[in-house]
């Protein structure tokens, strides 16, 4: 295990449009267990931000408590971060976003942090459709307290030391679709290519982009009896659609041979091209998106990909009609009504 990341990089390391190398997007060295799915997700986030030419300091990363919530330290070292309290990342993200709408907000949480202690905050940030990417690194267990079942552990699934789960699991993607998130996707930390496309589309979307990523816990929940293990997921994964994300300004060059693609334009002008490999499910309809998830579950499949997308999604600022100028930049001039008006207020209390 390495303790220090080497500062030396290849002099010809690839640079993005801002002239930054991947290094500018990296964070501190991870202290998670070797092979942890979360590290692959961190790596995908680094790649996504690098390839999308995002300015690191214009990104805000937020998290709650747990293994997953530690990861913001391991990516985007030049970004501001907020490691808040257990299950409460969504409210802190809401406040930060309302204060400055010009930054990109990436929230990272886990299944304990979101599906149990933070389920109320999760449901409501989704309902507000806050403009952020909300990633759940979902391993079906509490890693940091050594392997207790979480609320996303599937009924019948069994961790390394536990007995089969007797309660129903919570499907966060279904909840997010019902609650009003404009973008809902599910990925697998073992499928980096899909993760990267999914996260790029999530960042381009305006409104709440919820991305649930099954991310095995190698220490406590990576046994064949667990539905959150590498082997189980690989064997039962099914892509809802193959899709490609085409950033704004980039030529659409992706070649879909069967010609059955549907382009959906996102808020920033970029496009998602959905290739309908299956029965032509419309991912812009809530009811069919949920039906597909349930159907896959019956067949013991994990449906991955972009599951739901509302191209007309309105975020909190738009719904509430807040100023286009970030509220944190306003001064006495915009904010203080002055003593003359106060004198009038006084008069109405006489």
């Amino acid at each position, binding site marked *: 295990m390495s303790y220090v990341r080497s500062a030396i990089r290849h002099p010809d390391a690839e640079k993005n449009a801002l002239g930054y190398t991947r290094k500018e997007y990296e964070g501190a060295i991870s202290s998670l267990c070797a092979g942890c799915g979360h590290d692959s997700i961190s790596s995908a986030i680094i790649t996504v931000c690098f390839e999308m030419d995002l300015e*690191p*300091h*214009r990104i*805000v990363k937020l998290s709650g408590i747990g293994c997953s919530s530690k990861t*913001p*330290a391991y990516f985007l*070292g*030049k*970004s*501001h*971060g*907020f*490691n*808040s*309290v257990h299950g*409460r990342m*969504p*409210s*802190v*993200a*809401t*406040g*930060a*976003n*309302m*204060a*400055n709408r*010009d*930054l990109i907000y990436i929230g990272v949480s886990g299944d304990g942090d979101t599906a149990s202690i933070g389920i*109320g*905050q999760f*449901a*409501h940030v989704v309902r*507000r459709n806050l403009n952020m990417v909300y990633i759940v690194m979902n391993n079906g267990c509490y890693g940091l307290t050594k392997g207790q079942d979480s609320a996303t552990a599937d009924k019948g699934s069994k961790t390394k030391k536990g007995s089969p789960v007797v309660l129903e699991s919570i499907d966060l993607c279904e909840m997010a679709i019902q609650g009003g998130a404009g973008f809902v996707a599910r990925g697998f930390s073992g499928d980096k290519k899909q993760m990267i496309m999914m996260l790029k589309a999530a960042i381009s979307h305006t409104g709440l982009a919820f991305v649930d990523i099954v991310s095995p816990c190698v220490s406590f929940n990576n046994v064949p009896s667990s539905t959150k293990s590498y082997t189980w997921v690989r064997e039962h994964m099914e892509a809802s659609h193959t899709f490609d994300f085409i950033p704004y300004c980039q030529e659409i060059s992706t070649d879909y041979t069967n010609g059955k693609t549907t382009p959906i334009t996102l808020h920033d002008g970029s496009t998602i091209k959905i290739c309908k490999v299956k029965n032509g499910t419309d991912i812009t309809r809530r009811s069919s998106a949920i039906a597909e998830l349930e159907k896959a579950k019956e067949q013991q499949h994990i449906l991955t990909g972009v599951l739901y997308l509302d191209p007309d999604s309105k975020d*909190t*600022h738009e719904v*509430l*009609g*807040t*100023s*286009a100028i970030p*509220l*944190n*930049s*306003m*001064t*006495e001039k*915009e*904010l*203080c*009504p*002055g*003593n003359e*008006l*106060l*004198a009038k*207020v*006084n008069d109405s*209390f*006489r």
Partner: protein
Amino acid sequence: MKIRRVNDFVIRFANVNGSGSASANDLLAKTIFRLGVPINPYNIFPSNIQGLPTWFEVRISEKGYLGRRGGVDFIVAVNGQTLRQDYDMVQPGGYFLYDSTRKLPDEYRREDITVIDIPLTRLCNEEFSDPRLQQLLKNIIYIGAVSALLDIPLDTVSQAILKQFKKKPKLAKPNIQALKIGFDYACAHHSNSCGLSIRSSTAVGDRILMDGNTAAGLGALYAGATVVGWYPITPSTSVIETFERFANLYRVDKESGKKNFTVIQAEDELAAIGIAIGAGWSGARAFTATSGPGLSLMTEFLGLAYFAEIPIVLVNVQRCGPSTGMPTRTQQADILASAYSSHGDTRNVLLFPRDPHECFQMTADAFDLADRLQTPVIVMSDLDLGMNNHLCEALHWDDKRKYDRGKVMSAEDLEALTEPWGRYLDVDGDGICYRTYPGTHPDKGAYVTRGTSHNEYAAYTEENQAYERGMKRLMGKWNTARCLVPRPEITIRKKGSKIAALYFGTTTDAAREALDQLESSSIFINEMRIRAYPFQKEVFDFINQHDIVFVIEQNRDSQMKILLSGGCRVSPGRLIAVTHFNGLPITAIIIRNQIHTALLNRKLKQQ
């Protein structure tokens, strides 16, 4: 003997809640206030929307004593559920007005009071046929009768009605008609039966009649608060509702129609304060308001804001605890829970407003303090102050005033640094470090804010010395806070007197009245009004200059006394608790009696 007094009595209305009585009673209170006579109206209401007993009490005091007096001189009893209780509580020599459409039962036989019978229901039903209107106008009929009995000119009350219904002139007509019915009936049947009277005065002066929550909401608006997270809870709800109402008037950009503020009704109090913290961290002025159980729910986040050093303002409108307690009754019982809110070594700055004027000032100042100190600042209002109208000085804003945003690094500041920047590095030696807002500079000033232990450069650490250094620095900052918060108000009634009293917040008016009364019996008690926590040196000096100090407060456990003893700078034996905690505001009589008894016991012991 009838009580005969001018501009100095207590009148109480006994009603059923949800019957429209509140606005009728308020109408009379406003009328007296507009005649220039100081009043203190107080609403005793249930945690219920319709059908339970509610009382509205107005203390009228030409001398300007604005605390609750205790005792009732005149009662308007229109609630059958509490008729007996209301009948029994009238002071000897007082007046009992009731709806004589139903005869008073035979066992009501007090001979020491004057019973005034007015057939309110009959008069009302004879004149008005709409059942909903009947219920509302019955209230106005008794207001008419009371006005006549108290010698208030009919025209003055009519003017108040016209003002109240300015936007709905159609409704003014039947109201004025009802008013006249009551007024005429009282003149015809009860002239000269009441010895209480209102005479116009100049005692009110320039003052306004406002509730503390309105003032706090305005304070936040003037201080530039832009992000509000909140969850409705009695009695703090109207702080946010007022903020939003005035913000919609004064904070909407004329050209774009967009709001220069946002109010987010959260899913609970945890999220409410979380939103404020996220916004405060990001450089917006943010606040929330809560009460009782809401404060308990916010404790974890308060600890985060203290430890990660994020400015937020919390308006705590205290109510009766513990647990759900009495949600519609008042107390000052969150002192310790607020001061030490959260696990671990946590201390929060508290401000104690005494009236709406100070609610405005202190809420506005709280934003400067929070930004300067990078920590939560809690404005300690209460239900009495927050939800009732109080006579207070008119609000004022100095247009030259600049918001103090504290130590914030701009991109240029970061650029000019020669040493590496550390978020928790105490450069100036006052315990307050320099912070940055997210997104300030491409490669300087970014850090991860966390509730876990961190070193001077905001890096996660479990190194014991680094943790200890951080905690000690926070104590240094606490000492800086001591110099910045409002100073106590000290009044020396007699130089060299060894007896003193201290009080804070809404106890002030009753305490001063009690001390005035004691002074008139030649007991001179010096006084100090505490306005903030942490306490300054002069608070301890004042206490140590006296042999005994009464600590007057509205909670069972003498929480302020405990807080004062906590610093070990006063000997606890010096402090004598004067407490009141039944949910109604403390009165001068209660304070006077407790001080009297304590002084007597002390004398007996010394003999």
